[in-house]
């Protein structure tokens, strides 16, 4: 069975690119969520093997979404990879303490993305 990956990012284009990348390279099933709320809903509604989470979202930033995911029993074990455009040391510090599975900086090379995700998924299994 192919892995299911949820991409939570408020940028449509980014979602499209990421989903396409993961589909093409990994052959995984992907779905996108426009906002943190939607993402949580979807995360709780269906089983996911990995969640790609944008850090800077207007309504609920990635950190909050992650905490929600962790709080929720159904979703707390799903590995989460953060996508962030913020590159400052302080920002990095803030998220590194969260305990996420991985952190990818934007812009990213699609190969790098796929590799990282695959890595996480391997670990997961």
């Amino acid at each position, binding site marked *: 069975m192919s892995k299911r990956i949820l991409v939570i990012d408020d940028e449509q284009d980014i979602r499209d690119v990421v989903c*396409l990348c993961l589909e093409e390279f990994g052959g995984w099933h992907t779905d996108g969520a426009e906002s943190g709320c939607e993402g949580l809903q979807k995360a709780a509604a269906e089983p996911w093997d990995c969640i790609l989470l944008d850090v800077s979202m207007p309504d609920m930033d990635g950190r909050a979404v992650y905490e929600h995911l962790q709080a929720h029993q159904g979703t707390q074990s799903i590995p989460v990879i953060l996508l962030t455009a913020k590159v400052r040391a302080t920002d990095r510090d803030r998220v590194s303490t969260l305990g996420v599975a991985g952190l990818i900086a*934007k812009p990213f090379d699609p190969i790098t993305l796929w590799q990282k995700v695959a890595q996480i998924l391997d670990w997961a299994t």
Partner: protein
Amino acid sequence: MKFSLRNLLIVPFLLQIIGITGVVAYLSYRSGQRAVQDIASQLMTESSQRTRKSLDAYLQVTEFVTQTNRALLQSGRLDGTDLGSLQGHFMQQLELFPELSGLVIANEAGAFLNVTRQNERSFAVRRRNIDNADGRLYRWWVGANSLQPTLLDPVGYAYDPHRDPPQAPWYRAAETAPEGLWRLVVTLERGRNQPQLVMVRFEPFMTPEDELGGVVSTGILLTELGKFLQALVPGQYGQIFLIEPNGDLVATSTEEVPFEVSAAVSHAQNVAVQSRRLGVAESTSGLTRATAQMLLDGHSDFSHLQVPIFLELRFEGQRYFVQATPLTGELNWLLVTIIPTSEFMEDIYANVSRTALLCLLALMGSIGLGLWTARAITQPILSLQQATQAFTDGMAVVPPTQPSYLREVETLRQGFNHMVGQLVASFQRLKDRESTLVTLLNGVPVPLSVHDQTGQILFLNTKGQELLVNGIAVADAEQLAATYRLYRAGSDQLYPTDELPVVRGLRGETVDIDDIEIDLGDRRIPLAVSTIPVYNSQGQVLYSINTFQDITERRQTERLRANYQQELEHQVAQQTASLAANEATQQALINAIPDLLMRLGKDGLPREIYNLEAIHWIGDRAHPFNATMYDNLPDAIAEERRRCVEQALATGTIQQQEYELVYEGQTFYEEARIIPVTQDEVLVVVRDISDRYQVDRIKDEFISIVSHELRTPLTSIRGGLGLLALGVLQDRPQKAQQMLHIALDNTERMIRLVNDILDLERLASSQADLRVEPCQAADLIAQAVSGVEAIAQTAGVSLQVAPVTAMVVADPDAIVQTLTNLLGNAIKFSDPGSHIWLTAGIVEVPTAVLRIAVKDQGRGIPADRLELIFERFHQVDVSDSRQKGGAGLGLAICKGIVEQHGGEIWAESQLGVGSTFYVTLPLKPT
């Protein structure tokens, strides 16, 4: 009405005395009058009676003598024929009885003898010897020694005694009157030419043979009777006269002869009695006449009178008592006595006058006594009164009072003296106190005046008198300023009465002024006046006490000082100008420096501190010098600070310390620079750099956002192109195309972003090369509208435009960009089917500007965001920008552009209804 004591004592007393005396005098006068009258009448009566008695006696003598002669003749002792012895006898008798005037004998034979008294001791004899004579009647004068009679009528005349007077001879009458007969007869004893009336008492005598011997008579001349009466008259001015009832005078005490004395031619006439008689009304005495008239009083004659009568007669101003009584006896004569009242009254009047005088004296005496008594009473009282008056008038020495005999008055006087003594003593004490006070006040080295309620000066002390050399003038409050010539300092304006300290003091104010001047003619003296009101126990102002000081010297001193001060200040100013400049510069520098400046000693204690409020001071702001700097810092920072200070002092180089300070829950960033000044002191400059941090933070954030915003499309571009480059999408041409589009779109997005950022930066740094030129607003609007028409259409939003023709001075591209941005936003946030309006117009706010409004029916903007939306990167809802494309810079750029043009941009909105964005631009000046 007040009465004087004296008058009160004297007047009633006088009135009483006079009244009583008067009444008594009058009454007694009246009774006296009556009494006098009674007495007078009594006297008169007595007098009359006396007279009558005398007269009776007188007449009785005649009778007696006649009777004696008759008896002698009848007894033979006398021979009726012997005329010689009869003559001697008669003469003897005449000598014996001076009352008689004459004697007569006539015998039957016709002899006649008449011896009459002529004067003292001489007689007249008339004899008719019938014996040997020729029968003629001869008259002889016989002297006292009855020797040698002198023949008076050498030729006698025929005379018949029996027919004498021929009409009614007495001889015949007597013959037939055995008891005797009284008869008036005319006698010619003095001669034929001197007839006289004589009252004769005839009595016939018988011879011893008891035959009629003859008639013997005794007679009284009426004049003699008159003389007799005269002798009887009391006093000088009285009268007694006898009158027949028919009014014929008989005799009168006046010298008047009561009968006709002129001899008649014919003998018969000569001896006619009746014709010779005079009526009383013919009397030569007016008094007699008047009396007779009054007695008559309407009666025809005197026979009808109610006798006795007592009358009062007023004749020629004299008052006479008149008494008329009839004689008793045969002769029914009326005896009328007239006595002037004064005769009677002389004594009485004398008495009366004496009495009156005595009364008057008594009156005077009692009045005098009364006056004296009154005086005795009033004098001491008056003296008391005078003393009291003197006392109340304020005389120091009271005139001494007279002692009085009256107990009460004396007690009063002593009491008065005592009281006066006490009062004088207490006045003296008061005076002493007053003089002490005056001395005190005069000793006061400041001119002082005391004014009464009307403003009049009651007291002016010595100093005051020296000042007011012109003396005290009489002036009430109204004229004070004018009278004393008080002016406002430095002007010729009379000091207003209402503001005069005296007047204000009298109103109860306490005053201190020094803006008053007094004009003494040659100079003006400025005064400082203080006034204090003095109240009585009822709170009314009694006096005002003023002190007025000559402040000429003070003013001069002030002026000098001012000048000096001015000079000094000028000098000092000059001197310190540069110093001040330096200090000012220094201070300006210090003030300009928004940092804490502290001169710190090696020990850590501050020596000087400036701008303490510039930073957040942990320690006691009120006593910053009490603790060391290190005590006022958290340990870690203090440690570092100390190190810096030591380092600075050691190396002589400036040390720097940046740190984070937590103060009252807030985090601040400060920078401390330690500058060594001397070997022991450093200058510590501490600056709050939180702003900088914030700015840095903002910049970081901006950079972060910008980088984020750049990285986001880059991610899409990198991803898309990466996938394409890997060739994994060869089999999926749609996907490949999609990736290409994504890359292209995001490239465009990046370009826009970069442009926007650059625009914003240029605007912010005012390096925006706005090329302003006059342009038509309508054109600009039209351009913007045409730019967004397509988008509007796509969005299904209708756009309505109401432009205006106006010339503005603006950069056309910038304005178009702004309008396009606003319109774009409106379209972006409007739902399909809604409307957008763009209206433009000229408004006066207050100057005329062009105002453009872009109104939409979007969901509106919350009120608290209306200003924030014009900030950078701010959006109402970030998600919108992501969806609609944009970095949130648009409105910020619009604001920058509009404000660069000198206009304004703002938004008004109602949630759920819509928003309107306004832009104003200045019009091109005409």
